[in-house]
């Protein structure tokens, strides 16, 4: 997304980042990411906490596959699902970024 023009020396970044479009982009990006980041850290660190301080994950889930393994496979699935969600959402933001660049730089 490189800009081809030469006006950059005159760009007032302070002004651009305070435009409503840019502020809204940053805000929506954070609002999107924050819950997921908190969620995946919580899910991840719950694993050692549950295995260390409780024995609930030691119970058998399916045959001798214990809940410890099921929970871990759940983390794998979480990683794949969250990367897909991120990918889809990021495409939306790409459009807003293009708008902002068009308006302020070109």
């Amino acid at each position, binding site marked *: 997304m490189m800009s081809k023009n030469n006006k950059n020396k005159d760009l007032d970044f302070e002004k651009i980042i305070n435009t409503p479009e840019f502020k809204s982009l940053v805000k929506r990006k954070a609002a999107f990411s924050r819950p997921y980041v908190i969620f995946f850290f919580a899910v991840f660190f719950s694993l050692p*906490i549950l295995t260390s301080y409780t024995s609930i994950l030691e119970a058998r889930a399916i*045959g001798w596959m214990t809940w410890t393994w099921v929970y871990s496979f759940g983390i794998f699935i979480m990683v794949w699902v969250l990367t897909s969600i991120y990918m889809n959402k990021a495409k939306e933001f790409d459009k807003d970024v293009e708008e902002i660049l068009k308006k302020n730089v070109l």
Partner: protein
Amino acid sequence: MDILSIAIFVGVIGLTLAITYWAAKQTTTASDFYTAGGSLTGWQNGMAIAGDYLSAASFLGIAGAISLNGFDGFYYSVGWLTAYLVVLFLIAEPLRNLGKYTMADMIGSRFQARKIRGAAALNTITIVLFYMLAQLVGAGALIKLLLGIDYWISVLIVGVMMTVYVLFGGMTATSWVQIIKAILLMAGTIIISFLVLLKFNFNFIGMFDAMRTATPHGEAFLHSGVVYKDPIGLISVLIALVLGTAGLPHILMRFFTVKDAKTARSSVIYAVWIIGIFYVLTIFLGFGAAKFVGADAIVAENAAGNMAAPMLAGVLGGELLESFVAAVAFATILAVVAGLVLSGASAIAHDIYGEIIKKGKVTEKQAVNAARIAALSVSVVSILLALGSEKLNVAFLVSLAFCIAASANVPTILFTIYWKRFNTTGAVASMLTGLIVALVLVAMSPSVVNPVEGAAFFVGNPIFPYTNPAIVSVPAGFLAAIIGTLVSSRGKDEVYYAEVKFKAETGYRELGR
């Protein structure tokens, strides 16, 4: 297995050298050398990230750890995969948008002070040397076992190969070596996993049933706690695994090999699928080795279990598969050390020589020459260190490298992008505090001082109880950033935040930068 093994090894060497020859012809500028001219596609870079990331610690180490310790070995797989969510959600795109060749570029886009670049380069070099030493010593031991040649010759073979790739082919050769390695590694792992499943009659659940009685640990093999009896020690390891990836210089550098943030993003998606599937398959490697090779035989070959995967291949697929898997392990190490040489060289030639000493005023020719000289120096120093370390237990250096990355690099990277008030003092304080706290605590930990003779460098009682200090050093890195920032004055650093924030979000760049 000798003739066959040697033939497959020579095949790997020949193929990678041919690539290097081809890559050398396209490597003329500094941008070619460090980033392959930013020409990689999403899937190419995704494969290369997987090839760069899945080191001997992942392939040989996790297979061995699961085979000997059951679920506790699998923590590494879970942690090292989840780490990519941190990379994707917080780091990859702004990093691509702000940086040029190195992590220090990205931090330097906001803070012009040379001491910042110096501290970032110091962290990069420290991480690279530790990580590299672990890989080279492991490679020496591995090839010695597999081909029966002396340790020093083994280290020299790997050392010379990595030097040739980087010196002549730069990032282009390194990337393609990593892509080929990723393909070989996935192929080898899928074949072994298939054979393991075949042995269990494709009964995935039944496999867990069988494991309950297959090892000396009994049912405990299927639970957490065979190794990690202390919760704080376990959480400390997991902090280093999940945060460290986002601060590893050789991984971060890969994001500059694509043309924009969109491609950086898609390369993470490809990498996450490849790496995730690989880590799922580590279960088959580990379970298979425990069941069909047996803990006693694995430990007899290597106390840490590093030979579990090649031994399992031998049991299941005979000499052909064992030789193939040995070559895969060899390619695995080559791809990782080449990436490390390149990121070490970038810190020395681009950050220290180009930006600090020459203040960015270097010609293209000088930049490329400096990069080559730096690559050669990094290679020679690490080969010499590895030659002197045969008898040392260096396996802990990989998790130490992750710990330093998490403690010394990650706080500064995150605050540079997301905290307006953050300033030069905070960044320097954080990078140095993270590094020093991690190093000092490891020096006092059971990895260095251990009551069991031969387990570490010194015999005695460790002052710091946990082998991985991340639980202390990571908060220390973040705290130093916050305190350093708050006690120093609001300078001009905040002015640059607007520019950095705009560029980080949009990928906007001036011409010629």
